[in-house]
């Protein structure tokens, strides 16, 4: 559900190791929120004036900041707006963000600041379509980030806990909607007996969802390129081991493999992908879709081309299709079996093209002999220490923060339900808390409540007149 005048917050600066990072808060209660976290709070804030102070979460010091209040309508969104200028590290920024959220703001939806700016007349009509595109693109990015972070055991464990809660709800609602079947429903003490285990489980999950972890996880790196250009050989060369399948027939690597490796002090999470190629083979098609997704998700793209063929038109098109913000390195592989640079393509030198078409850096390598790998590693090191990669994507941080908030909400609601059951509060009230838990967990998984409870009652119990 979207709300309109409630107060939203997000990190407003691009991810990276900048000196200053901004958290922006917008909405009717922006001042109220800042009043709860910023000390010393000047009370009557003057618009467009800088204030110096500290952000606190209760009594925990978070960051030393400057704060600026922009009174409605003289702000980006035309609403009351607060900007907090803190230290640039993503970890500190996300701590400031979560403090603000714990104190009354809500995490902004993808593109929501821009949407509000538009709805409040700040942007002109010509920009409206761009707003729609922005919402679409950011939503897609957030969905991918959510899927990725829910991978592994997390979504399974969430679903398990959520299913338990649905089952309790079905029992409670059965006894309410079908009182003639109430003896079949489990009573409060039976549910109470299980509540602690679920609360415990959710608390453990919450610990795994912190922002610091993303930044420590490594630079997500995608190796992409047409089939049979030597992507898997390159991965193996980097890893010094033989995990990926390497085969002469085009199109044999269909899944996205990930490997963690430390290259020149830089932690990388490398995704080896299926060859990019137009295909009708359904299995391979899935592989290629995954390749595109992996490339979209990556902070660093290693684009492998075959130096014996040179950069083809297809290569150019693919490289151009990647977002401008991506860090891309082009690797001309098989330099050992071509003469000279070996980087010929379509009759013209790639180096010339590099200048005219603004291609990303181009590095001749031989995945087979290891030639050129040192140069690749030093490029990666430079990118990392320049702060271009290794900060975690913006969407990742937002997604993880969203998950953390929702898990915290779910735990609070569930603890309430447990207390209510314990105190003998009537079922219709306990149901409200359980339902809120169920909805919060569903939001993490991106699913709505729908007719779940009714469906569960009819699946589990034989009721009806």
């Amino acid at each position, binding site marked *: *559900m*979207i*709300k*309109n005048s409630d107060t939203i917050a997000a990190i407003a600066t691009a991810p990276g190791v900048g000196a200053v990072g901004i958290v922006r808060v917008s909405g009717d209660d922006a001042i109220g929120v800042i009043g709860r976290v910023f000390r010393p709070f000047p009370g009557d804030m003057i618009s467009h004036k800088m204030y110096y102070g500290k952000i606190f979460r209760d009594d925990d010091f978070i960051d030393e900041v400057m704060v600026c209040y922009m009174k409605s309508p003289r702000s980006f969104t035309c609403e009351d707006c607060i900007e907090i200028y803190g230290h640039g590290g993503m970890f500190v920024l996300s701590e400031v963000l979560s403090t603000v959220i714990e104190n009354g703001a809500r995490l902004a*939806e*993808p*593109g*929501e600041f821009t*949407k509000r700016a*538009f*709805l409040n007349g700040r942007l002109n*009509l010509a920009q*409206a*379509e761009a*707003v*729609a*595109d922005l*919402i*679409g693109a950011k*939503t897609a990015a957030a969905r991918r980030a959510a899927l990725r972070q829910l991978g592994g055991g997390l979504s399974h464990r969430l679903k398990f806990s959520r299913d338990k809660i649905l089952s309790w709800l079905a029992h409670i*609602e059965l*006894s*309410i*909607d*079908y*009182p*003639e*079947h109430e003896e079949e429903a489990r009573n409060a003490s039976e549910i109470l007996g299980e509540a602690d285990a679920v609360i415990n489980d959710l608390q453990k999950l919450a610990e795994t969802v912190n922002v610091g972890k993303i930044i420590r996880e490594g630079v997500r790196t995608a190796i992409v390129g047409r089939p049979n250009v030597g992507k898997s050989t390159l991965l193996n060369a980097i890893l010094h081991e033989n995990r990926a399948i390497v085969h002469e027939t085009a199109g044999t690597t269909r899944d996205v493999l990930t490997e963690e490796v430390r290259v020149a002090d830089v932690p990388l999470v490398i995704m080896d992908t299926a060859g990019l190629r137009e295909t009708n083979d359904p299995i391979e098609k899935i592989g290629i879709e995954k390749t595109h997704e992996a490339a979209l998700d990556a902070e660093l793209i290693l684009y492998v081309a075959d130096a014996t063929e040179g950069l083809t038109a297809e290569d150019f098109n693919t490289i151009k299709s990647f977002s401008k913000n991506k860090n891309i390195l082009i690797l001309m592989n098989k330099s050992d079996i071509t003469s000279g640079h070996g980087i010929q393509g379509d009759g013209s030198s790639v180096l010339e093209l590099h200048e005219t078409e603004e291609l990303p850096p181009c590095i001749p390598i031989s995945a087979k002999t290891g030639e050129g790998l040192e140069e690749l590693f030093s490029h990666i090191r430079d990118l990392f220490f320049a702060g271009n990669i290794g900060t975690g994507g913006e969407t990742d941080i937002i997604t993880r923060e969203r998950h953390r908030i929702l898990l915290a909400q779910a735990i609070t609601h569930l603890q309430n339900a447990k207390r209510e059951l314990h*105190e*003998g*509060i*009537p*079922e*219709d*009230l306990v*149901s*409200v808390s359980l339902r809120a838990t169920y909805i919060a967990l569903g939001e993490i998984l991106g699913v709505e409540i729908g007719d779940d*409870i*009714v469906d569960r*009652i*009819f699946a589990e119990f*034989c009721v*009806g*007149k």
Partner: protein
Amino acid sequence: MKIIVIGGGHAGCEAALAAARIGAKVTLFALSLDSIALMPCNPCIGGSAKGHLVREIDALGGQMGKAIDATFIQSRMLNTAKGPAVYSLRAQADKKNYMTYMKQILENEPNISLREGEVVEILTANSKVSGVKIISGEIVECDAVIVCTGTYLNARCLYGETITHTGPGGLKNAVGLSESLKKLGFNLQRFKTGTPARIHRRSIDFSKMAVQPGDEKIVPFSFETDPAKIAREQIPCHLTYTTPATHDLIRESLHRSAMYSGLIEATGTRYCPSIEDKIVRFADKERHPVFIEPEGINTQEMYAQGLSSALPEDVQIQVYRSVPGLENCEIMRVAYAIEYDCIDATQLTLNLEAKHIGGLFFAGQINGSSGYEEAAAQGLIAGISAASENGKAIELGRADGYIGVLIDDLVTKGTREPYRMMTSRAEYRLLLRQDNADLRLTPKGYAAGLIPEQRHSQFQQKAAAIQAEILRLQKTTVTPDEANEILMNKNSAPLKSGAKLADLIKRPEINYNDFNNLGALPPEVESQLDLFVLEAVQEQVEIQIKYEGYIKIQLEQAEAFRKMEKKLIPPDIEYENIHGLRLEARQKLAALRPVNFGQASRVTGISPADLSVLMVYVKQKTG
């Protein structure tokens, strides 16, 4: 304003009465005037969520609550230990008396003409209703039509290998109208429901069953009914259970049930499964409950709730006789399944009017619902809407009442099986209690012209008294001396210093009446209220104080919800052209054409991002 109501069931009765009371001239066509307000299935009104619906119908000025208060033969308040939001009133009706009562009400309403006759066609001109054609060929002109055909459209009744082309209980079905609806562009669905056998009372051994008596203290359905005036001797229901023998018999004969032999084409229902369905779907369950309910005072027929079936008659009798207490039972009317045509209600507005034909309304089982109460609620809204001039029609949202939830579910999500009202479907259940239905809805009923002045002023007195008393309890401080004896008697912690009465009532172990002696309503207020209204005031005060915290949270949620309902979407919007909206979203929104962003958000498959894009587009168009 001239309105035609097709059908005299629970939807048709409320629709006709509402429209007529607002001032429209109503003609109600029924296939048989002997079946006005017929209860073709269970002999009861109310129950969980359905009881809420009846209270809301009454609060809005409908008839069902008064009808059952006048004709009940047993009354119970269910769920009293499960919290005030889910208290559920349920009453056994004397079916014949109920019908007689309702027919008399219709006959005595000056603006209603009752006519026996089958409507076979709905006539339109310029996408607007112009009249109906009845089977004789006669054309009756009108401004609006309310279709309340229940389970009669192309109905077939089935049990075993027997198929009869009739409506329920062997009554004539309606065959012409389905074709007319199809021609008018409605997508028809085929639904199925069923009913158990009726058994002769003398053939039942009640000593083998658990007795279920009515409540000693009767709570009426209507806010206007004085319980003292409807006290009467009550008739008990009885409970027994199926046995392993029952289940074996059914399994052996499953192939002979119309449910399983392939004879039934329609979509079945989870809400009233046949006993065959129960045995198949819940094979491990050792027994299923069977409730034996009286059909009335002047009849020996007993209804066997839980034993609905489409087995052949020879198997049915064996199945019934395998149940303790029914060993020698005589079946008077056989159980059967019934199939009928209904429309896809997503073709309707929130006022139950067809989106593409002005003045054509639908209410009741034709919209895919099940149940007398669900039907009556829709009939009431359709009646008010059809008779209201120029969009003064009633607006009832999900945060206003179960009726709002019911209609929104039907027209926004649609249903693929008969829809039953359940409290779990209401998001704001703590607000939508049966005790406060009048506070929520009577002002709306008054605005719609259905609540007479006198009732309205009595209502206002009650509402004012509730406010005054809450205020008094919040302001009155009691001293430890005044309170501690009472508190100690209730095992409640004694006071060390003064406390507000309201705070004491919030304690789970303390009730409003415990502090009755410490002052009450101002005498001038008290003297104006009937005793039963005074009791209702006190009940209301207690609930509102005790659950204040929870109610406040839901009020905030409901407020946020209402904001979205107020953001309108222009009716002429072209979804196909919205840049940035996903194709699936464009198609779904174009098909349903939601009136506001709240409704759009509930369309199946629409995401928050879709809504954002739509919001930007609407802003761009409307400036």
